[in-house]
């Protein structure tokens, strides 16, 4: 069982720069065909300063930490048992290629169901840009399967 004293666990501060090449690669990976997400000229024509970060890519940027699963070790979570249960984004403003985004990530809940067969870990993430503006928030719910 995951110790509930880890509720409140804060991951190390993390800042990363959004790269055009990664956004294009991500667009390819999800089959994106809208040039706004791959062609800076099309993005500018649509009123954006550069390629926008698509809605789900904020989750991916958080995984660019040096040790993206380091917090699993700290909490005693075994990677092979983990499934992604739910994901919840709230958006405040767009982010673009070239932006520097800072992630503030903390565990806000740990609970179990089915007599402990399933454990749930909830982590909140707040993402701000280089101007200190809140860009987006997301809540990740992980499911840890036992047996």
């Amino acid at each position, binding site marked *: 069982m995951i110790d509930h004293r880890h509720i409140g666990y804060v991951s190390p501060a993390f800042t990363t720069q959004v790269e055009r090449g990664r956004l294009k690669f991500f667009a390819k990976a999800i089959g994106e065909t809208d040039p706004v997400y791959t062609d800076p000229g099309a993005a500018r024509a649509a009123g954006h300063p550069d390629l926008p970060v698509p809605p*789900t890519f904020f989750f991916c940027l958080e995984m660019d930490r040096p040790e993206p699963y380091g917090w699993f070790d700290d909490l005693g979570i075994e990677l092979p048992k983990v499934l992604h249960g739910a994901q919840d984004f709230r958006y405040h403003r767009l982010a673009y290629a070239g932006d520097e985004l800072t992630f503030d990530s903390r565990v806000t809940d740990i609970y179990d169901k089915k007599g402990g067969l399933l454990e749930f870990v909830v982590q909140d993430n707040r993402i701000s840009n280089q101007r200190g503006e809140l860009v987006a928030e997301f809540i990740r719910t992980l499911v840890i399967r036992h047996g």
Partner: protein
Amino acid sequence: MAEPSAFDYTTAAVGSAWPALSLPPVTRLTLALYCGASGDHNPLHVDQDFAREAGLGDVIAHGMLVMGYMGRTVTRFVPQTALLAFNSRFQAMTRVGDQITCTGEVIAHETDVNGRPCLRLALRATDQKGEVKTQGEALIALPG
């Protein structure tokens, strides 16, 4: 699949269907590309040996790949600046060979916390057998 020539979400009534997005079958290449591009290098999605050891039989797709498809279902008609919130519950594993179709339905007109008029879209990703993989909602700001 032919792209719908136009869909105006700003006039979509509650109960109206959102144009579906049909994806090609998930291949191991799909998973490898998503692994690299997303930065989520969890071996469960690309390493068959690891997935077998974990008791899953074979690799499974990233839930976030399916959510990425659902995001495209929204943003091909909605400027991303109008997307206020987007959530998913991952209900079944997506496997190699699964062919995902994303569908949606406008379920409410409402106002957000700032009093902006919005529409709430229910989204669903199902496979070729009709199994629901992921369900979610998007909150989309309306002009005016």
